[in-house]
């Protein structure tokens, strides 16, 4: 085996990197470190950046159109908030069990938030403070509401009666409730038309400056619901007269 070892050495000793190649190699090796890689030109990094930009871009576009996409209407902070809310329900076809929100005025808000798992409605449109009760609860709107309710009562087809409607007058302290207010468009129709009821005016009660008009109790899916309106005492006469006429009808 010594022969093998000698042969190995003899041959291998002849294998050498020639000087020219060696210098060339050394030069390349040193340049390899000088070459500064631009982070932005690295394919992986560039791909990630481009991908992130795309995601952000899509996010911006989506967010800017989300309200419209979700509700079918441009969401604006105005007295049509409940219309938007109604549209959301309609669009998403949320099934609501009536027994879930018995005596629960906050149900409509909570269910939307829960179902959508988004803050979009919470942020601007159905927030307690953003719900402009003061603006909505004027005489004209109350009148409209009552007219529409009357209209709804007379209708056969009923689909929604899921809200306890509470209307505050402008100086009434907001309660811890989420209210469905009236507006001057079809929104209230959307909600109120669905009231199928054997409406009975049950009570008129109130405080010093306000009157709680507990004026309709109705049955829906074997459950009893109440619609309440708080008004100034000065409005009470008007309401009372109207309710009386309703009762007569």
């Amino acid at each position: 085996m010594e022969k093998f070892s000698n042969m190995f050495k003899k041959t291998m000793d002849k294998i050498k990197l020639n000087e020219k190649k060696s210098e060339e190699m050394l030069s390349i090796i040193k340049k390899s470190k000088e070459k500064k890689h631009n982070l932005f030109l690295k394919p992986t990094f560039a791909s990630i950046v481009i991908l992130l930009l795309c995601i952000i871009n899509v996010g911006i576009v989506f967010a800017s159109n989300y309200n419209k996409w979700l509700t079918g209407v441009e969401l604006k902070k105005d007295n049509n908030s409940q219309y938007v809310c109604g549209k959301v329900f309609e669009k998403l076809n949320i099934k609501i069990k009536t027994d879930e929100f018995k005596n629960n005025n906050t149900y409509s808000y909570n269910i939307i938030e829960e179902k959508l798992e988004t803050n979009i409605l919470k942020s601007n449109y159905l927030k307690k403070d953003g719900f402009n009760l003061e603006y909505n609860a004027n005489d004209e709107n109350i009148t409209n509401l009552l007219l529409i309710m009357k209209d709804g009562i007379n209708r056969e087809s009923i689909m929604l009666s899921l809200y306890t409607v509470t209307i505050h007058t402008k100086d009434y302290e907001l309660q811890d409730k989420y209210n469905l207010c009236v507006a001057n468009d079809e929104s209230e129709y959307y909600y109120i038309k669905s009231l199928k009821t054997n409406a009975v005016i049950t009570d008129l009660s109130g405080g010093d400056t306000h009157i709680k008009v507990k004026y309709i109790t109705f049955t829906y899916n074997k459950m009893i619901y109440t619609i309440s309106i708080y008004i100034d005492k000065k409005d009470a006469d008007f309401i009372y007269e109207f309710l009386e006429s309703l009762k007569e009808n």
Partner: protein
Amino acid sequence: MDQQFDYLFNKYKNDVYRLAYSYMLNVEDAEDITQKVFIKLYKHKVYIPDGELKKWLFRVTINNCKDYFRASFFRKRSNVSIDDLSISSNFTFDKTDEDFLKQLQKINKKYVIVLYLYYYLGYNVEEIASIINISESGVKSRLRRGKIEFKKEMERF
């Protein structure tokens, strides 16, 4: 830093090159691998003690050779006979050297590395085991089988 690297490059370049050449049996491939190994050393930020450096270089060289061998472009070319490759163009090989390299080409690469480390560089079994990351008995086995294979090829030749 550069001076130290120059010193190390000049000290170990031929050992690395020979190891690469004995594995690849091709001048260009051996040069490429040598360059890659030293680029890796040049960029290596962790200090390697001088005693360990040679082993580190051989380990990297062997890994690079294996990668090269596995590469598709090399496999396509691997059917080419050693006679067609430039085994002697850069070196002053005589007939016995060329014969020796041809035998070397025919035996398993894993034996070639062990034979090179043991017979040429003079590493003992324990050191070889640490370089190629196998057990000492594995090294002994490869040495024995390598010699047997080489002997067979010599007799056949």
